[in-house]
């Protein structure tokens, strides 16, 4: 069996500091262009939660040489796909194009990095503010349990930590955003020296450096990036159990648990990723066996957030079957998580194999490949992790899982969030 995936790539840096990864693969006449900016909701100042995401929307509203609404139109017209997303640590922008349209992608991405502000207007801001507020209503306010990430982040991170608030932000803060904020945010964070560009797929590798330089080379570097606001250092453990109960218009109670774990990038994080799979992936997983097979729960999820500032979190949730008392469900959930302390070899092997298969599957997609290369370059300056990550996961042993569980899955390190149906 082949030991690891082999994604080949070259890397180079433009004079203005833009880091570029070029991963050539001519299998299909398709090319992926992916940009990561080292800015996310963690960089938002007080009173401007949700701004990084609102700003992402502004990046699609045209720039000096790209008319309003032309960004989507030009890419869709040639059969490409595109999007952007904002998370705690980063904002990314990406398009997949027929390979003969690679330059279109480079032109669009460079124009909004170099020439965004001349095209910015109050009207565009007001319109996208409305779109984002609708996104919040749709994702959060009109969804059962829709505010769980806001609640968990508030519980697990102190008020002065950049992860204390969620990506979507508050309606009031979105309302408060001004054109001056847009300009300042752009000048601070949207600079070539704060970005990574990955091009993956079918292109001429010899010609690429000159091509990238032609579109991005004249953009001047920006000033040094300011440090993250607030406190970024955290104790490795929470030191207590934090509990919250939320009454909402939901039919069934749901229990979330969150544990503080080492940040993504720490060697211990791989054990967390395997532990999350042991808990929640597949019908053989611990939570499935203990909660669903027994008729206590409707669904189970476990996920280790790959985030890097101070500490990450591992979150699980489960929704009660009707008639099941929320506290009975919580106890069963905590007991199942506790079983990781005596994890079996079979359970560890199962989880590692599932992770392996799903990681490899992701790499089949050019856009995932490009995004993963950008991520490893941005977060760790180590793009080759795309090839070595699987070995790190395979190296996780039963003993690692047991000691990880012993250290991190205790009462003094967890948040527990219960959703209860609002009494009528």
């Amino acid at each position, binding site marked *: 069996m082949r030991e690891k995936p082999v994604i080949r790539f070259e890397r180079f840096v433009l004079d203005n500091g833009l880091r570029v990864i070029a991963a050539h693969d001519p299998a299909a006449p398709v090319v992926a262009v992916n940009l990561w900016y080292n800015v996310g909701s963690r960089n938002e100042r007080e009173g401007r939660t949700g701004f990084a995401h609102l700003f992402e929307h502004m990046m699609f509203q045209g720039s000096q040489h790209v008319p309003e609404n032309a960004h989507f139109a030009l890419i869709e017209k040639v059969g490409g796909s595109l999007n952007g997303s904002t998370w705690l640590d980063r904002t990314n922008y990406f398009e997949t194009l027929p390979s003969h349209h690679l330059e279109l992608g480079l032109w669009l991405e460079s124009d909004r990095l170099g020439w965004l502000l001349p095209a910015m207007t109050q009207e565009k801001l007001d319109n996208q503010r409305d*779109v984002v507020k609708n996104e919040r209503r749709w994702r959060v306010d009109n969804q059962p349990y829709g505010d769980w990430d806001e609640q968990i982040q508030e519980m697990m991170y102190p008020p002065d930590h950049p992860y204390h608030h969620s990506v979507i932000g508050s309606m009031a803060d979105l309302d408060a955003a001004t054109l001056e904020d847009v300009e300042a945010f752009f000048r601070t964070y949207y600079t070539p020296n704060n970005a990574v560009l990955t091009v993956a797929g079918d292109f001429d590798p010899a010609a690429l450096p000159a091509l990238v330089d032609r579109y991005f080379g004249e953009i001047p570097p920006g000033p040094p990036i300011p440090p993250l606001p607030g406190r970024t250092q955290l104790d490795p453990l929470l030191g207590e159990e934090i509990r919250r109960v939320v009454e909402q218009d939901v039919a069934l109670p749901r229990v979330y648990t969150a544990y503080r774990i080492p940040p993504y990038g720490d060697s211990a994080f791989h054990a967390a990723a395997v532990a999350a799979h042991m808990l929640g992936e597949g019908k053989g997983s611990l939570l499935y066996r203990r909660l669903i097979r027994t008729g206590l729960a409707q669904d189970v999820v476990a996920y280790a957030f790959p985030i890097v500032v101070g500490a990450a979190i591992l979150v699980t949730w489960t929704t009660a079957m009707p008639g099941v008392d929320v506290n009975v469900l919580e106890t069963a959930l905590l007991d199942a998580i506790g079983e990781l302390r005596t994890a079996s070899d079979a359970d560890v092997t199962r989880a590692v194999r599932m992770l392996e298969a799903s990681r490899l599957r992701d790499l089949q997609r050019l856009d995932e490949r490009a995004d993963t290369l950008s991520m490893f370059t941005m977060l760790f300056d180590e793009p080759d992790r795309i090839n070595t990550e699987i070995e790190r996961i395979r190296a996780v042993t039963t003993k690692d899982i047991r000691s990880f569980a012993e250290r991190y899955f205790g009462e003094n390190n967890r948040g527990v969030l219960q959703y209860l149906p609002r009494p009528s």
Partner: protein
Amino acid sequence: MSGRSIPVVGPPGLVRTPPYVRTQLAGGLTVVAVPRHDLPLVDLQLIVPAGAVRNLRATAGLASMTAEMLDEGTKVRTAIELSEAIDLLGADLDIRVTWDATLAGMHVLSPRLEEALRLLAEMLLEPTFPEEELERKREERLNALRQDRDEPRAVAARTLARAVFGDHPYGVPIHGLEDSVRRLQRDAIEADYRMHFSGSRAFLVVAGDIDVDALFRLADELFGGWSRPSQDIATPPLPEARRRRIVLVDRPGAPQSEVRFGHFGPARNTELYFPLIVANTVLGGSFKSRLNMRLREEKGYTYGASSAFGFRKYAGAFSGGTAVFTDVTDDTIRITLEELQKIAEQGATVEEVERARQYLAYGFARNLEMTSDLVSALSDVVLYELPDDYLDRYSGNVLSVGVDDVRAAARACFDPEHVAIAVVGDRARIEGPLEKLGMPLEVWEVE
């Protein structure tokens, strides 16, 4: 702006659909294999052409329960033993039902393909439908249906289907209704399985890091004898199309209204397929579509608006929708109907058709990137009896659609007079404005 003008473009590259091999086993099973060796992965799917369209209202949910019970126990393994065996292979097993087929898919590293296929055969050929697992699944499903009542999107989709298709199978959720799920019997499930699951009609599609000859031998060993007479599926005719109306489901205090619209659509084998997907790309099938541009980019009412044809074997559906803030619910419906009327009467402009054609034709390569994409595209080819060179000809077929074709297809298939509109939102705030839209308004309870 000389240095920053839009780049000049060279000629497009060729989309090369990977070649595939097709064979039929002695028992009747058709096997389609697509070798591709860049990563040590295999995706496979077994397709039994027995879908949820065989559900009657009284037995709604039967087809999907039969499917979901396949991995709940076999002659040699209990449910737990099965799930442990699957997980230990690192294999994803995904069993689901569409209107037209039961699909059992697996994703596995290539060295573990043989074990995975053996497990799949065991589940498909020797299921035992244990009573206690059925009871557990029944509880799970009843609970999921109850939860759906709180999900405005689920309520909206279900309300629209009922408004368009009434008591026809398409009008009832694939997973059934609380009443029908409560009544599902083990014997009925077993009989349903015996009646519809047979190798003589089924297909196995495999793509990835495989040795084709070895695969055919293994498939023959495992599925060669899988054959029994199975029944044709009788599909009831569609009801008569109802006149345009709004169906409102109250969700007191909701900050947003979920709006859906839809009517009947053509079957998958319609000759209008290519002009229709171009027409829908213009109306609601892309970011730059008319609906999204007007409701999101012009008005800022929503995060997104879209529409799609659901092509099915016997007859299809056309539907679309959006979620908008409460106070603009009526204007959203007004705009939606305006756009539907306009495209039905006038079709699309040359520029729009050109853009939609390119979007679909050149975007097609992206739809075949992963081995799972290949499996799902070829599954459609075999299930819907499309030509063998369908994938290779797809882009050419799209690019040859003209403005006149789009206008004719839009006229034939968009039907603003018979559109049903489902709204899930705060009745107290929207009922008055909706009444002023000048069409019948019915208020429904959540089923």
